[in-house]
Each structure stands twice: as structure tokens, then as C-alpha cells.
């Protein structure tokens, strides 16, 4: 990785405060920073594209509005008792037990009602909007493509090279991803099997300045890149490892995620992996007529849930959890009311799922409001703009400079706290010391977890209201060094803002949360 671009992205600036607090010498830190490559540049993002328009209301259920859901979609609605609870208000489809587990481990966020203003119900236009991250019809580069264009100039001609030997993005399967379309080329490299990369004949051509010249130059560059990237990918996959026994070899998403784990653990420096899952355009037979818990949509959700659970388990065993995060997206949700063919027609906003050990929020946003009367063609209204989610990922995960991020998007960005659960760690040990305590989920209602690192200390934890009054001592005891999760019941608290105070001989730290 290039030192220069590491310094440029502001990671050091954002880290300076904890260094001082912990009394480290700056020189030591700087050395560790550069010796141990655990910076933003080693972060990996997984995009799972749910192609066709995912019915968000059959994936994340507003449990508090089951009666209204019954009015709108009685022929496809899964029984209330079968919904998997995440919180009192939010539940998952019965087939998504894997993601329910991840939620309980603090590794799954649900981002509610994500869309964009003036929704477009064309698959193609809407997917273009999601891929480009822009409403402007003239924007043809992808949101990641624009970021890569800025960070890695002269693509594709100048790559691969000594500093950047690996593809910037890998699209699993046989198609490149339009999210990675740059000005002059697509940053994603299509890989269907990382172990099978044949050598192709090298070519060189002259571009005569016409369309023809551009096309043959493109093919020539691609052939040469295919050779070079192919070797990198195969050697990384061969050097890599995978440890989880939860991958189902018959689940194509699991197979692809396993390949990805293999490539990451083998040292491939690719930043983005894209998986495409088709089949979400469920105009009819979305559910099984004999059992609404089953059917086309249920199977798709199960595959994603099982595969992500296995992948996360693998990353944990491989010690890679702090480097990888993933997010799902789809071109739109579907209409609130079902149609007569056990399906749903094109709608508007839908929830996104964000996963990884570094997530910093549980449920983001409130449940959609389901009306109790059927309004033809109504979709779920947008509350959170997906472009803000993309921007927040670039900020939290790739630590891109805020001015740069604003330059990539057309809207005035509102940032969400999504992936700040791990510090920009220097090494595992230092990370433990720098780790800020975290309440999850936040805001919360029934119970929540306090996640924090201990440095072998006798710790007291106090619950404090917003006036600074100590309400109770929630915990007291000797804790070993390392990460800790404590679960607290907070149902009895009035709605409002509260803090936990973590107090030991060596520290006093506050962490805030919102009680709904």
C-alpha cells in the first residue's frame, strides 16, 4: 500500500486524540501504523446485490404493525408467531435464523426505509440510480468507480503495477458490476472460480482514435490484465484458507463467500467484492400457496442468511473479522399491498442489511408506517437516502476525506454512524486499548448489550441519567483483558437519553444511549 495515500486519507488525524489520552508516544504509534497493515486500506467491503426488487416487508417485519400488515397482504403474510424477533418492534423472516444469530452477536445492522426521493419503479433506471449513487440521468460512472477514479488515476492503462498488483474490486461470476464503472474502464474484475485462471495470449494494438481503436485497445488491455490479475488471484486463493464448516456447498452464495474468504485470507488486496443474487422480482408465487413461510422469496432469504452467517463465522475463525463488512442492496422494495397472484409489484423504499464485527448501530431508523387501508400501488416511503449510506460507508470504512466524499455525491450528505465499531486499529493489542465502549442496539427498548474492552482491571459500571444523576451500579468486578459483552435490561427506564460510566483505577469513560 502506498504510504502517501494512507497519510492523505486522514486516518492519522482521527486517531490523534486517543493516542494522547493513552499516553503513547507518537513515534511508537507511527511505527506500528506502518508495520502492521491494519489501516483503512486493508478494509474489505462486500456488496450483495438482490436483483429484481426485494420485498423488504417480507424480510424485516414491523412487529408492532402486524394487524395493519394483515390488512395489506393477508395472502402472503407469514404467521406472527413465526417471525424471528430482533427487538420488540422488529423481526426477521422465519428463514433468516443465521442473521438473527448475527444480530444477537452484535454483527448485524438493519437500516430501515432506504430509498431515494421521487422513486422510479423501472428495474433498469432504478438499478442505474443505485449503481451510480446519483439521481442525475447523465451520471454513468458507479459510486465506487468514482471513488476509485479519484484514488487511482489513469485506470485501466496504468494497472496492475508494483504498488497495486491486485484488482481493486472483484465481481463474483461472469459479469462486472456497474457500481465500479469508472470514466475509462470498470474497476471490477469478473471471477467465477479463483482457482481457474488460464494464461491468455498477450497482445498489443494501436488505437487509431476511432471507436474501433478504442474497442480493440479495451480488449487488449483486458487480456493483459486478465493474465496479471489472474495470477495474483490464483496465488492468493491457493495461499488462503477457510475454516468454517457452516458453508453449504449447494448454496451458491455460500460458495462465492467462501471463495472470497479464501482470497482475503490469502492476502489479496482487493477492496470490494460484489455478489449478484437474482430472482427477487416476485410478481407472482412469491410465497408457497400451501405454506406462506416457504416459497421463492423465503428460499432466497435463507440462502443469503445462511451464507452470511457462515462467512462471518469463517472470518472470526480466520481472525479477519475486523477487516470485513458487507451490505445488501436492491433496486427497490415492493408495494405494501400484495397482488392476487401471491406476489407483489414494484414499490419504493426497503431495508438494507449491514453485517460485520465493526458495525456500530443496531436498528437504524424507525419501522415503516403501514396504513390500515389499502392504497393502490403505495410503496414504503423513503426515510433514509441510500446515497447517505454509501457516503457513510466511505467515511467509516475506507476513511475517505469528507470533502472528497461530498465531491462524489450530488446531495448534501447526512452521515450515519454505521461502521465505527472497531477503531482504526493499529494492532490487535492496541486496538483493545483504543476501543471505545459501545451500546448495541442503540437506540434500544427492551434490553441491550454494552460492548467494551478491558485491560485486566477492576471495573465498576454506573447507569447515569441525562442530568448526571447515578441511577444504579450496573456491574462491579474484576475483568480479564479482552473484549466483553454485558447484557442489561432497560425496559423499566423512561424514554430518554442515558449514559454508562465505566470506572476503574486507570480510566473513566462515558458511553451514551437512547431509550425509546
Amino acid at each position, binding site marked *: 500500500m502506498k504510504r502517501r495515500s494512507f497519510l492523505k486519507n486522514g486516518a492519522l488525524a482521527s486517531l490523534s486524540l486517543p493516542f494522547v489520552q493513552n499516553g503513547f508516544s507518537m513515534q511508537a504509534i507511527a511505527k506500528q501504523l506502518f508495520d502492521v497493515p491494519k489501516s483503512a486500506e486493508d478494509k474489505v467491503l462486500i456488496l450483495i446485490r438482490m436483483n429484481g426488487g426485494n420485498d423488504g416487508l417480507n424480510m424485516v417485519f414491523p412487529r408492532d404493525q402486524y394487524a395493519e400488515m394483515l390488512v395489506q397482504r393477508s395472502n402472503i403474510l407469514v404467521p406472527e408467531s413465526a417471525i424471528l424477533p430482533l427487538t420488540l418492534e422488529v423481526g426477521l423472516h422465519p428463514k433468516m435464523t443465521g442473521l438473527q444469530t448475527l444480530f444477537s452477536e452484535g454483527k448485524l445492522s438493519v437500516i430501515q426505509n432506504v430509498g431515494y426521493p*421521487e*422513486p*422510479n*419503479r*423501472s*428495474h*433498469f*433506471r432504478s438499478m442505474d440510480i443505485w449503481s451510480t449513487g446519483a*439521481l442525475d*440521468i447523465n451520471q*454513468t*460512472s458507479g459510486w465506487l468507480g468514482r471513488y476509485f477514479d479519484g484514488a487511482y488515476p489513469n485506470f485501466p492503462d496504468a494497472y496492475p503495477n508494483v504498488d497495486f498488483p491486485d484488482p481493486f474490486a472483484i465481481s463474483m*461470476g*461472469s*459479469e*462486472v458490476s*456497474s457500481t465500479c*464503472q469508472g470514466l475509462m474502464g*470498470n474497476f471490477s*474484475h*469478473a*471471477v*467465477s472460480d479463483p482457482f481457474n*485462471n*488460464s494464461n*491468455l*495470449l498477450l*497482445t498489443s*494494438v*494501436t488505437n*487509431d482514435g*476511432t*471507436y*474501433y481503436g478504442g*474497442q*480493440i*485497445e*479495451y*480488449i*487488449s488491455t*483486458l*487480456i493483459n*490484465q*486478465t493474465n496479471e*490479475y*489472474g495470477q495474483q488471484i490464483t496465488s492468493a486463493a491457493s495461499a488462503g484458507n477457510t475454516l468454517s464448516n457452516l458453508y453449504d456447498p449447494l448454496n451458491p452464495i455460500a460458495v462465492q463467500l467462501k471463495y472470497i474468504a479464501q482470497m482475503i485470507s490469502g492476502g489479496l488486496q482487493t477492496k470490494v467484492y460484489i455478489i449478484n443474487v437474482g430472482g427477487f422480482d416476485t*410478481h*407472482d408465487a412469491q410465497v408457497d400457496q400451501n405454506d406462506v413461510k416457504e416459497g421463492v422469496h423465503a428460499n432466497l432469504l435463507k440462502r443469503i442468511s445462511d451464507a452470511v452467517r457462515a462467512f462471518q463465522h469463517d472470518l472470526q475463525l480466520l481472525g479477519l473479522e475486523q477487516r470485513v463488512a458487507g451490505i445488501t442492496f436492491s433496486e427497490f422494495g415492493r408495494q405494501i399491498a400484495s*397482488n*392476487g*397472484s401471491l*406476489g407483489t*409489484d*414494484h414499490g419504493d423504499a426497503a431495508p438494507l442489511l449491514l453485517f460485520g464485527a465493526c458495525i456500530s448501530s443496531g436498528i437504524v431508523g424507525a419501522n415503516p408506517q403501514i396504513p390500515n387501508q389499502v392504497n*393502490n*400501488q403505495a410503496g414504503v416511503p423513503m426515510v433514509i437516502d441510500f446515497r447517505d449510506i454509501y457516503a457513510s460507508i466511505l467515511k467509516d470504512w475506507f476513511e475517505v476525506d469528507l470533502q472528497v466524499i461530498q465531491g462524489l455525491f450530488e446531495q448534501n450528505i447526512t452521515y450515519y454512524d454505521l461502521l465505527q465499531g472497531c477503531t482504526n486499529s493499529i494492532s490487535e493489542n492496541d486496538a483493545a486499548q483504543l476501543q471505545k465502549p459501545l451500546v448495541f442496539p442503540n437506540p434500544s427498548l427492551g434490553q441491550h448489550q454494552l460492548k467494551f474492552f478491558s485491560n485486566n482491571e477492576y471495573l465498576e459500571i454506573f447507569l447515569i441519567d441525562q442530568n448526571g444523576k447515578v441511577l444504579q451500579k450496573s456491574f462491579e468486578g474484576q475483568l480479564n483483558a479482552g473484549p466483553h459483552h454485558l447484557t442489561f435490561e432497560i425496559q423499566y427506564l423512561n424514554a430518554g437519553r442515558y449514559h454508562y460510566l465505566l470506572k476503574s483505577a486507570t480510566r473513566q469513560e462515558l458511553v451514551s444511549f437512547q431509550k425509546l
Partner: protein
Amino acid sequence: MTPYTGPWTSAQAAHLLRRCTFGATFTDIQAAVQNGLNTTLSTLFTSSIIDQPLAFDPAEQIVAQGQTWINAVYPTDNAANQQTEGARMKSLGAWIAKNLNQESLSLNEKMLFFWQNHFGVTASGDARAMYQYLNLLRQHALGNVKQLVKDVSIDPCMLVFLNGSTNSVFSPNENYARELLELFTVGKGVQLAAGDYSTFTEQDVAAGAKIFTGYVVQGVRSATQTQVTSQYLPLLHDNTNKTLSYHFANQTISAGGATEYATYIDVIFNQADTASYICRKLYRYFVNAEITTWVEQNIISDMTQTFISSNFDIAPVLNELLSSAHFYDLSVRGAIIRSPFETLCAMLNTSSTSANFDLQSTYQIYLSMYGLADQMGQGYLAPPSVAGWTAYYQAPAFYRLWINSTYIKKRFDVVNILTSNNYNVNGNIFKIKVLDFLNGLSMPSSAPQVVDDLCVVLFPKDIPVADKLAIKAVLTGGLPDFEWTLQYNEYLNAPTNPIFYAPVELRMQAVLNIMFKMPQFHVC
């Protein structure tokens, strides 16, 4: 549109044939030069006659091998029914590849695929229905587009594919109504407000869904019906009057029963956007992906006018385009990246290579051809979406989407298979007939002339001299040119003696192996 009046040489003739067919031979090109542009064009507009697909797979349980299944019932038994469908789909896929490989010098196959891409229908359920649907497209391929859209709207395949068969007054389903406007006719414009796409609104989608209610599909994989049919059931039709949005001047489509949809399609074709939308797709298919302002004002607008004044007959539009100065402009020559089937057929059709073995072997080979194109990204019977293949619409990459690191490897694998002697089906070797190819050139005994002629057939533009010398060195094995002449003449004297033909064949296979892997071969 300004007509082309420049020189008519093999460069222009080869360009026309490359864009209008799946691969022309050196002889075809020379004939086109002789015949001139107008005669060549009228040949291209002649329809060809196609055989019916035949049963060849042992899983077929109703008709005998070698007979067609297109009007045959299915077995009653569930498992046998499914197996028979599998056998018929294999036969259909093989038959498609065979038609592309054995096409006559006609626009037929090229336009058939244009419509297959335009409507994006994925085969679902019954091979007979898919055969009928392809026949419908073929019948109108060079004919009237308005009639085609009307017929497609109630075709059993389309009714199943976009849920028309479950669209009723009791449960309207918007799927077809939306894609008809967005993808098949007026196209989507800039979004003006929520639900308003400047050429239509959500109101039109909802109204359209009601207009199309009432059609059901009968006979899918039936043990008694020999055809899949669509039928109109008045009880399922929405009998209200449907009011369209301001984009259609708030017109009302009055309740009109079984033919109401045809009235609606007439209204849609009265929108100038419909004509220009289809003309832009034709331009992208035949000329270039990028539609510049100049092209929009000078080419698309003329095409649109011709299309409207011909009452939506497509032949006059194509004829005007393919004889225009713009079509032959050097700036657009070689601008298109060949689709997988175009690439595959360019390897075979340029040498008139086809499979002519026993029924089983021939169909198996064509089924493999179908599968190879599928693996390169073009499963003919299964477009990636209802919008067709992304290469024809996804800006800014367009045709570049046919080639990426996975697909290029597959393309090279196919080259290796077809330029070897290793593709053996039931003891029959299927390979490019390189000796026929060679013998059809202008002076096969001259190594430099062989390379020149091959470049005319395979590449859209001349290539640098250094590249030609490199290819020639492969042909001659690095020996002086006269050695090739000697070798070729020895073969001519004893054409069936492997001692003489095998080395010539090997050299030609090596040359084609190289040329098919050059970037210039993958554009047209």
C-alpha cells in the same frame, strides 16, 4: 438521410455483410462487390425458409427421433413429462445454433435476435410455446412492428413470462403493462416527478394492467392439447373505461373486450417517442452504441420519420440506414464488439463450416454450440432480464460488457476447441474446415495473399504490416514464402493424402488460432 455514393470495394461490402449476418465467406464478399450495394441489400431482405426442430434426445417419449415435436402432446406421467420437456428444450437450443450457423445471406437471423433481445422473453414451461413464439418473431422480423407488438402482447410465452396469464380484474398485475411502455414501445424518459417518467406515468401502468386483463394460457405441457394457446375469458376482464395520463392527452380506452389491448397499442404507437425509441435501438444494433447529438438530429430523426410514414414497417427504415453514407463512414467501422454468437459463428460461417453428421451427432454438436455461447454470456433462450442483454443498453460500456476477464477466457477456450482436431462427438470430429476456407481465397498458394484475404474476412479494418508479417510467419512456419507455395501445391496434387494435407491444415489451424485471439477479430 444522405445515401452512400462512395467506392464499393470489399471493405464496404464486408462491412455490410458483417453487420447484417453472422458471418460471410470470402466468396460472399466478392459476390457482393460484383453485385453492388442495391442488389446485395435486396438479397439481404429476402426471407429464408427454416426446417423444424427434430427430436434427437432419448428422453423424448412421444415422437420418434428425427420427427418434429412442435405439434406433439406431452406424456401424462409427471416424470416422463419433465424429461420430454428437457429433451425438447435441448432440441430447440440446438436448432437455434444450427439456424445461426447455417443461415442464408439474409438479415433474418440478425433481426430475429434483435427482437429476442428487444422483448427479453425467457423460455418458460413449454418448448412448443417457445418455438411458436420464436416463429412469431421470425414471421415479423422484417415486417410490421406495430402488429408484432400486438401479437407478442397476447402470445402464450409473453403471457406467462410477464404474468399476463394471472392478470385479471380480481388481481391486476402490472408486470407486462410496465415493460410494454418502458422497454418495448415509448421507452422511459427523464423522471419529471414521482411516478412520472416523461413518456408515461404510474397511472398508465395501472391502466395498462387493467386493459390487458382477461387472457389466460392453456395447454402448457398438456397430454391432450397439441398446441399452447392463449384464450380471452370475458369474466376475467376489467370492463371499466381506462383513462391514460396527460402524456397520452388523458385519452380514455373504452371497455372493448378482447381487442381492447390492440386499441391501446395503436394509441401507444401514435406517440412519436415509440418510433424514435425503436429506431435508437436499431441504430445501436447495426451502427454504433454512442448516439451523438449529430446522430440524433441527422440519423435517428430521419429513421423515425421513415418508420412513421411506413406505418411501422421496419424494412424501409433498415434499407435507408444500410445504404446511408453514415453507415459506411470509417468512424463507425469496427465500432461494435461481437456478441458471443456473432463471435462463435464468425469462426464457423466464414469458412462455411457446419455440422452435417447423423442426426444425433449433429444436434449434439449444435447443442454444445448453444452451450458455449451461453457460457460466453449469451444464452439465447434466457436473456439476463426483460430488457435483454446489457451490452445493448447499459451506458457507457455497452458492447464492452460482452468481454471481461471471465468471458475472454471462455472465448479463447472456444477458439482452442474449434481450431484443433480434438472435438469428437460419437467418432465425428467437428472442426473448422480450414482447407475449404483456404481454397476459397483468391490465391491460396501465396502466403502474403492468404494473410491479406483472411484479414478482409475476419477484421473490420486493415491491420499493421508488422502484425501481418507475424501471422504470415505462423503460416509458413518461419520459412521463406515459396516453401508455403510448394507445400500448398503438393497438397493440391494429392488433396486426399494426409501426408500433404495434414501440414497445410495444421498451419491454417495455427493461423486461425492466432487471428481469432486478436482483439481485432472480436469487433465488427
